[in-house]
């Protein structure tokens, strides 16, 4: 990531959310990005994932400049290499746990979609809850489904945005254990945005973000 800057125009003034942020993450590394609310953590994560476009600067993923690609190119890249875990889970309410996990496989046109998704849910301890809808699951269970959905395509990079933000301490700890376990198993790179110090210390490296700049 090189000299990433994001500015937004609000009314007549211009607000700089990220200023000249540069860092490199090696394959297999686990990095935590910490900072207070409004420090630009989520914006940074959005830019890393190619969900938004920077005002200046760029992001390279395995040597590929992702902002040299158009939006469809970035979407294809996400499908192939990225996995996401969000604070608010973002499960689709009209789909069962199994179908939520199947969705990324279906979108990428994979084979054995059902079997793969079922195995993944079993791995996160929800083998008995395949046909439950998100609203029938507890918060911790919903986040497990989200983790299963993130890992089922075997992404090389996992991005997590406050994954325990909506969970109590005990449940959050369980979810985090699972995430780190899977990350190790699959050899993925992990970038985690959080303001939970305990959680950040489990990562190999901590990046501190304040007022849009790396400290």
């Amino acid at each position, binding site marked *: 990531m090189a000299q990433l800057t994001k500015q937004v125009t609000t009314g007549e003034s211009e607000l700089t959310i990220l200023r000249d942020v540069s860092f490199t993450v090696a394959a297999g590394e686990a990095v935590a990005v910490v900072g207070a609310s409004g420090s630009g953590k*989520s914006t940074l*994560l*959005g830019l890393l*994932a190619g*969900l*938004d476009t920077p005002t200046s600067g760029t992001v390279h993923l395995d040597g590929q400049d992702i902002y040299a690609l158009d*939006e*469809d190119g970035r*979407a*294809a*890249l*996400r*499908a*192939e290499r*990225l996995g*996401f875990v*969000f604070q*608010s*889970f*973002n499960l*689709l*309410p*009209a*789909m*069962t746990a199994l*179908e939520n996990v199947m*969705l*990324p496989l*279906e*979108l*990428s*046109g994979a084979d054995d979609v059902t079997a793969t998704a079922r195995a993944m849910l079993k791995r996160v301890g929800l083998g008995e809850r395949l046909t439950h*809808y998100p*609203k029938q699951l507890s*918060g911790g269970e919903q986040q497990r489904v989200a983790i299963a*959905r993130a890992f089922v395509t075997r992404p090389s990079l996992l991005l997590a*945005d406050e994954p325990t933000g*909506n969970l109590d301490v005990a449940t959050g700890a369980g979810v985090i254990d699972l995430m780190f376990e899977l990350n190790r198993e699959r050899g993925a790179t992990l970038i985690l945005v959080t303001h939970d110090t305990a959680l950040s210390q489990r990562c190999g490296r901590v990046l501190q973000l304040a007022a849009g700049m790396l400290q």
Partner: protein
Amino acid sequence: MRRHSDIGLALRLLARDWRARELTLVALAVVVAVASVTTVDFFTDRVYQALSRQANQLLGADLVVTGDRPLGDAFEGEAGRRGLQVTRMLRFPSMTAIENRNVLSEVKVVSAGYPLRGELRIADAPYQPDRRATAIPEPGTVWVDEKLYTRLQLQDGDAVEVGNSRLKVAAIITQEPDSAVGFINAGPRVLLNEADIAATGLVQIGSRVRYRVQVAGPPAAVDAYRIWVNARLEPGQRVESIEDARPEIRSALDRAGRFLALSTLLSVILAAVAVALATRRFLQRHLDACAVMRCLGASQGRVVRLYLLQFVALGCVASLIGCLIGWGAQHALALWLGGLVTVALPGAGVMPAVQGFVTGLALLLGFALPPLTALGRVSPLRVLRRDIGAPKGMGALGYVLGAAVISALVLWKAGELKTGLLVLAGFAGALLVAALVSWMVIVAVSQLRGGGVSWRFGIANLRRRRLASMLQVMALGTGVMALLTLTIIRGELLQLWQGSLPSDAPNRFIVNIQKDQVPALERFFAAQGIGMPELYPMVRARLLQINERPVAPTDFTDDRARRLVDREFNLSWATHMQKDNSIVAGSWWNDANGKSAQRTDQFSMEDGIARALGIKLGDVLTFDSAGSTFAAEVTSLRKVDWDSFNVNFFVVAPPGLLEKQPVSYVTSFYLPPGNVALLNALVKQFPNFLLIDVAQVLGQVKMMIEQVSKAVQFVFLFTLLAGLVVLYAAIASSHDERLYQATIMRALGASRAQLARATLAEFAVIGALAGLIAAAGANALGYVLAQRVMNIGYGFSFTVWAVGVVCSIVGIVIAGHLGTRQALQVSPLRVLRQLA
């Protein structure tokens, strides 16, 4: 490959959304739209055709070719080749005699198969029970009607002289299907077999014989045959159909058609509103799903494609179900009306189903396409930041395509551009006014201070979601309007229409009453206990010139115009215009105070006949009556309500113009069924009277009104359903937001009672506004229907306003309360988690 897999994936997504009941409302709206459109189309296709066909019973056939010379074999031969049923008939006046008594009668000579439509009924002796005739008189015998039987003082087994033949009277005719058509058949009837006609020696050169070829068959074949015949008619020959023969029937058929067409328009518009609301809700609820899919690597184009495929598939399935329901409904209807429609219903065509299917897809895609394409632009960042709202294009602008689709559908369904544009303009104007009023009221109400915290919170909601509240008010208003139209307006209008033809509407006309007979006629009616009906003066005259240019039948290409010029007009004079007439151009001669104009050389002409003859306001018409001519200017054109069954005239003059011409009088009165003795006494005392029996035509029109009323009720069932779907969709459109907000309020410590009162305040304002809009709309719609479709007076309906506003407030408050009750009963955390 990708496209192929997308179809499969889209279908799987569709199935999941369906199972989660995300699509129920959209599908229901489409199904109702398609079902109502298809059912009405089937009506037009089948029942309307059946009604026309049933009306043709009064003609005894579907089509009749007549001429004053033998018609030759060509018409008959061609009909046979086309697989149509054919019979021949001759009609002429002749003396019928027995011993030294003789009576001028109307002889009808028929071939086997007569009548092709309707019933010929006979009895063995006068006043005996009758039965349907299954054949025509055997050679050597005749059938006569009761009038002739009485006047010739016949006995059982007598034979009468017709020309050179003596023919035995074998039966009494009690009902002929074609007796009501034209004045010609006013004389007593003799019916004989065509095998006997040569022997009578009555048909010779110069005889006043009308030759007729009568044809019946499938409507399409009859129409094709009509075109073939029209191209080959010679002078003196013409085609008769029931619409030409009886304006009353045409008038009633026209009304039926227009009423049904407007019902369809209402259903289509309502269903469109339901589809729009339901689609909007679906797409709002799928913003997150789109963002997640984008995040998981689906491109913009792919997201749009997946949802588009879903909607096309949904549209196809829902439209198909709608078609099936429409098809089933028309079968049910056929059974239901079966007892009333006496002819076999023509089969259901494929076109209504195709049209319904196209309508369903067009409605769904028209409203879904703009927001669908906008869905592709949902920022994937939404997965991180929920405050990123819907992309542009999902607001008002998104409905432009939908509005275009509705307009196209309305113009298509209206059948004619003018009506379609009128409905569209009316609807758009009403929407605009409703939007303005609700906007202003919402702003005004939100300025109100005071009241408790609940009231303030409820009203603040209205203000905060001003645009959404306004849309909700309008959608609810449309739904309630449909309900009001269905229940109150429909009832009032149909009652008025049925009332326009009272049970004692005139069913007999007396023509040729001489001036010196009037006192005797008055005494006759008094003796019978019947009030003297109003007499109208009548002058028979031939149209000689229009603007001093001589007219001849050959000047006109239109068949009806030719006949009008060829025969004598019936003219009359009057000071006041009859109640069942209305001026469409120019003005009547007496002013508002009833004071007559000084000018006597004026004519008021019936609009339809003026158009057929190309006569405009200001044209001067010259008539000839028994050798004396008179002329006057056309100063007004009138629309005549023919199905009122009153005496009416094509041409009316003010007093002072026609009195010098030979005058006779005409009247109409109601004869209770079965009172044949009165008729016989009348004929006996006034042998010169022509008595015309319109009871059959009257019965036919009454039956048509009844059938159409039933048909309209049936069609309105779908309108009701569409209205209910609109109501539900409108309430549901703000359900999630309300639930969320109420839950937050509860979390902040608001009591259930406070929340319930806030909901009550908000929905009461919405309900009152929707009720007002609905009452205004329904009342206006009723007025337009009454004026333009049924030609009856209809004004302000207090019931509609009272019931509309009260029921709307109560109904919407209850529905709203039920919708948000969930927020008051379950734990706030649970609701928040569900909505997260």
